[in-house]
């Protein structure tokens, strides 16, 4: 299922599952990721699943590229049925203080904000991966009419909780961070909680996310 395994530096395997971004390829990545986690292979010290790649880092004091590669090639991969998937609802307020880029989107996409909300809220999005900053989910796929480019000049500070769109993807900024996604609203929900060491992420790869629109009062009533 892995198309090619190469080395990324001297202490990681770069597993290539293809070049496209779709649920089918990403599910394969997630199956490998979860299978390796389950096997608890000595020497592996990190795994990074993404749209269509899986990077496996290892401790060069214990193992090397060839030995880990062999173990991955002989791995027992769990099948799709064994994948857990949660459905998570994320409330989002689109008050003008939060929807920083809605005007820009209306202009670039040539549709009204109501149409944008209609096509965004209540739809099921698949979580391809989490990361860049702790807990940030990369969700998809947006309809063609919602697909916009990144900001030409990224913001120095995107507020925590911001919900952004870029190309066929949506995300949530779990921390204040620099970023170039088109911000349409803000969620009061805690998406990453470092005090929950066993499960700090609300949204994990393979999960399904549904965004729900809330008003300002509801936003401030959710105290997380």
């Amino acid at each position, binding site marked *: 299922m892995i198309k090619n395994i*190469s*080395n*990324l*530096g*001297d*202490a*990681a395997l*770069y597993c290539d599952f293809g*070049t496209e*971004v779709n649920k089918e390829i990403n599910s394969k990545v997630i199956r490998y*990721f979860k299978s390796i986690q389950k096997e608890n292979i000595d020497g592996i*010290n*990190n*795994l*990074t*699943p*993404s*749209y*269509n*790649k*899986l*990077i496996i*880092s290892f401790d*060069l*004091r214990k193992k*090397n*590229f060839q030995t880990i590669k062999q173990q991955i090639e002989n791995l027992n991969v769990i099948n799709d049925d064994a994948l857990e998937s949660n459905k998570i609802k994320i409330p989002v307020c689109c008050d003008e203080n939060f929807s920083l880029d809605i005007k820009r989107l209306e202009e670039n996409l040539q549709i009204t904000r109501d149409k944008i909300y209609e096509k965004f809220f209540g739809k099921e999005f698949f979580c391809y*991966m*989490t*990361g*860049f*900053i*702790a*807990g*940030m989910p*990369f969700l998809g796929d947006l309809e063609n009419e919602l697909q916009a480019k990144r900001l030409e000049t990224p913001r120095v500070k995107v507020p925590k909780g911001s919900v952004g769109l870029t190309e066929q993807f949506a995300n949530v900024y*779990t*921390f204040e*961070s620099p970023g170039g996604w088109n911000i349409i609203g803000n969620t009061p929900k805690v998406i*990453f909680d*470092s005090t929950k*060491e066993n499960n*700090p*992420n609300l949204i*994990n*790869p393979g999960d399904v996310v549904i965004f729900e629109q809330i008003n300002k009062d509801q936003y401030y009533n959710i105290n997380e």
Partner: protein
Amino acid sequence: MNKNYFEIKRAGINTTFQDQGRGNLYHIGIPFSGAMDNRNFQISNKLVGNEVNFPTIEFAFQGPLLKYFGENINFAITGDVKFIIRKKSNAIEGDCYQSFTLENGDELDIISTNKSVYGYLAVSGEFEVNYQWSSCSVNTKANIGANNGKKIEDGQKIYISNINKNLSDKKLNYINTKIENIRVIQGTNFDYFSDEGKKIIFEKEFVISKLSDRMGMRLEGPKIENIVDTNIKSEGLLKGVIQVPADGNPIIMLSDHGTIGGYPKIGVVISADYDKLVQLTPGSKIKFKKVELADAETLFKLYDLETQNLISQI
């Protein structure tokens, strides 16, 4: 029992608690973090009789000024660091790679790192810090680790417990060598770059930009031209990965890097050269030398043996 503690009179520029960091969290967006220069970190602990993975205070450029209160304690500083110990009656300039004793009321003034970036302060006891995922290492981006995931600040107190009563002096003869040739393995997107770009990366000099920190090191120099696509579908990153964004200036990922990125990877710094890489100061010149995987593995074995050998001499 009286508490033993440091009062922070001056925090310094980038002073954080660090140990060897935390693994197995890339998939949720958390990098290893940990001491930037792992060799110097380990040596500092060994010089005060600790296990090598005890929490230490890492500082960069200007270090902290600390006033000590409590029973006698040993400390050691590693790196290339200028520091002064001020006692009631006199002040002495300290040497790195050697343990010293602090008495109640003494001040330790870590003035600066010399032509290097990071230094380490270890004490013969345990800093009272909180751990997350078994590590105290501070990640200021996600506020994870000791000190609520924040840098050490002016005026705060740092408590120390379990002071080792057997305060024997320790010393290591070691000088930090500097390298300007950093060895690199070709990256997974090497073919995204023009023939000229491929030559530039391994033949030309780059200068380290001021915009460098624990997350990444930016380089300036001849532009590396991309002929395929200046973006890739976002995928995992590692420390040591050299990305080249659209502007053609390479960025090297360091210990607090973002876990996912969308710029093509032209190369990866070999594990054996990482400790030396992070010590290069802004304005320094840097040149990359291409090596193959097998060589990188051997070079790391040698480097690790050398580190183990240094530790065993203490």
